[in-house]
C-alpha cells in the first residue's frame, strides 16, 4: 500500500503546495456541516466520513492516489497568454498571475505519465482552483499533445475533468478548443487506443460538450455536478425550480450518459481492472 501512504502524507515535495484539498486543522463539510479534522478527511480520501461527500481535490492529489509510484509531469512549460488583452472587472493577465500564485500551478490542467498496477497510462487532470478549471488554449494544447503522446507510446489515455467550461477571457480561441480536443480524440479512436473520461465535481459547459463526454468509458465520482448548461441558467430559462439531484452523477447514469459511478476509494482498483481488461484481451 505504498501508494496510499504517499497519498495520505503527500510526501512528494514538488507537490506539497499544489494541493487543492482543504488545509488547516479542521474541516467543515459543505454538504452536511459535519466538522472533522483535516487528518481524518485525508485518511478518508478527502471524502466526508459522515455523508460521503467527495470534496474537490486537485490534479496532483489524483496523481498521488492513482499512480503506482513515481510519475512524470509533461508539457508543464505551456502557459497561457493574454492574446486578446481581455478586460472585464479584472484584466485577464492579472487573473493569470493570481491563479498561478494561489495554486502554484501553471494551468488548469496538468499532465502526468506513469503506471497503475504496472500498466502504463497517461493522465491529464484539471484543477478547479485555477480560474474555475476553465478551458483555454493551453488546456486544448495539453490535451492535444497528450493524445499524440499516447499514440506514439501506444498507451491508454485518461482525463479527469473538473471545470466550469470554456474560458471566456480567451473568447473564440477557447471555443475552438472544443473542436481541437474532439478532433484529436477522433485520431486516438482511429488508433484504437482506449480513452477513459473521468468526470468529477463540477464538469459543465464546453468541457462536457467535448472531451469529457467522448470517453470509451465515461465514469464519475458520486454526487458530482455534470451538465451542459449551468443550473442557474436553466432555472432562469424554464422559470421553475430544478428537481432534486438534477445534473448529478446519479442523474446522468440514470439517463444513460455514464458507464458507472465509482467511489474515490475504489477508483484505483477499478482503473487497474479496466487497464488489465483492455491491455490483455486474450490473457490465459
Amino acid at each position, binding site marked *: 500500500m505504498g501508494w496510499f501512504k504517499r497519498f495520505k502524507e503527500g510526501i512528494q515535495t514538488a507537490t506539497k503546495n499544489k494541493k487543492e484539498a482543504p488545509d488547516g486543522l479542521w474541516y467543515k463539510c459543505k454538504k452536511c456541516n459535519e466538522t472533522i479534522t483535516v487528518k481524518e478527511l485525508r485518511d478518508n480520501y478527502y471524502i466526508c466520513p459522515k455523508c460521503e461527500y467527495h470534496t474537490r481535490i486537485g490534479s496532483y492529489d489524483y496523481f498521488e492516489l492513482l499512480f503506482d509510484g513515481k510519475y512524470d509531469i509533461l508539457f508543464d*512549460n*505551456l*502557459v*497561457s*497568454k493574454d*492574446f*486578446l488583452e*481581455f*478586460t*472585464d*472587472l479584472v484584466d485577464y493577465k492579472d487573473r493569470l498571475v493570481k491563479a498561478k500564485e494561489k495554486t502554484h500551478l501553471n494551468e488548469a490542467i496538468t499532465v502526468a505519465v506513469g503506471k497503475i498496477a504496472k500498466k502504463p497510462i497517461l493522465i491529464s487532470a484539471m484543477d478547479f482552483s485555477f480560474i474555475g478549471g476553465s478551458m483555454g*488554449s*493551453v488546456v486544448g*494544447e495539453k490535451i*492535444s499533445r497528450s493524445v499524440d503522446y499516447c499514440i506514439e507510446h501506444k498507451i491508454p489515455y485518461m482525463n479527469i475533468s473538473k471545470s466550469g467550461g*470554456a*474560458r*471566456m477571457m*480567451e*473568447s*473564440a*480561441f*477557447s*471555443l*475552438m*478548443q*472544443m*473542436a*481541437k480536443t*474532439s*478532433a*484529436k480524440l*477522433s*485520431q486516438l*479512436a*482511429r488508433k484504437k487506443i482506449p480513452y477513459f473520461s473521468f468526470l468529477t465535481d463540477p464538469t459543465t*459547459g*464546453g468541457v*462536457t*460538450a*467535448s*472531451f*469529457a*463526454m*467522448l470517453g470509451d468509458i465515461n465514469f464519475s465520482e458520486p454526487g458530482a455536478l455534470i*451538465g*451542459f*448548461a*449551468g443550473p442557474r*441558467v*436553466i432555472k432562469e*430559462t*424554464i422559470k421553475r425550480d*430544478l*428537481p432534486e439531484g*438534477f*445534473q448529478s452523477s446519479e442523474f446522468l447514469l440514470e*439517463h*444513460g*450518459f455514464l458507464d458507472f459511478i465509482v467511489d474515490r476509494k475504489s477508483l484505483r482498483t477499478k482503473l487497474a481492472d479496466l487497464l488489465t481488461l483492455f491491455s490483455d484481451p486474450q490473457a490465459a
Partner: protein
Amino acid sequence: MVFLEFERPLEKLYEQLEKIRQIESEGDIDVTDKVKELESKIKTKQKEIYSNLSGWQKVQLSRHPERPYSLYYIETMFKKFVELHGDRTYGDDKAIVGGIGRINGQTLVVIGHQKGVNTKMRQYRNFGMANPEGYRKALRLMKLAEKFNYPVVCLIDTPGAYPGLEAEERGQAEAIAKNLLEMAQLRVPIVCYIIGEGASGGALGIGLGDRVYMLENTWYSVISPESCSSILWRSWDHKEEAAESLKLTADHMLEFGLIDDVIKEPLGGAHNDPEKMAKILKSHIKKEVATLMELTPQRRIDQRIKKYCKMGVYQTAAAE
C-alpha cells in the same frame, strides 16, 4: 421596415423617399431628380453607418428581425430541395432544419439553424436554440451525406444550444461532443457559414468543417455578450463592453485565423437585399464544394484536423 438604433438616420431619409413616391403616384409633378438625390443620400448614409460598426452593433445587425434565415437561403439557392426530418431516436427538432438539395448540378446535404419569422414561428423554432435531437438529426444527415459522397453545407445562426431541463436529460453535451468527434472524421467535404449568430457550443455543434466562413455582419464567440456581461461584470448592463472584449466580429475571427474568410454582405446588410445575399452565398458554395471535392477524403480529414490543431495561443515558460 425595422430600423435599429444606429440605423435611425436612415429612417428619415426613407420616410422622405416614401412621401415623394406618393406625390409621384398622384402624377402632377416630376420628382425624378428628387428621388435620385434621396437615393444617393441614402447610399452615402448607409456607407457611413455600416463601415464603422462596433462589435455590439454587429451583434444587433446579426439579430435583425428582417435578416434572412437558413430556410430562406435554402429555398432561394437550391433548385430542388427535400427537407428531411427527425433524429430517428427521439424526435424532430424545429430549431435545426436539414435536407438534400442541388446547386448547379451537385447534390448536397444542407443543415442549418432556423429561427422563426414571426412571433408564432419564433416559438415554434425555439428561437433557433436546438435540443439534443437537433444535433443528432444533423449528424444523421451528415452520415447520409457520407454514405453517398455528397458534400455537407452548414448554415449557422443560433443564440446557443437550448439550456433546458429536458435538453440536459437527453444529453445536450453528449450530442454536441459526438458531432464534433464525427465531423472531424467525416469523409465528405464540410463547408460552414455563420449567417447570423454564432453562439458557443450550440453553433460549433454543426460548425466544424474543412472551411468556415462568416458573413460580414455576424459574430462568433464562446458566449453571448449579454451572458458574458452577467457573469464577468455581474450585471446585464455591460454588453457593449463585453462585445468589444470578446472580439467576436468576422474581421477579428479572420485576423485570429479561426475562420477562412469573411463574405461581404450587400450594402446595408443581408436584410437589405436578401436575394443578392443568397446569390453571393450560392456562388461561394459552388466554388468551395468543387475545390474540396477534388481532394481525397483522407487528405481532407488530415487538413481539417491540422487546421483545428493550430488554433490556440500560448507561450512556453522557462523551466523552474
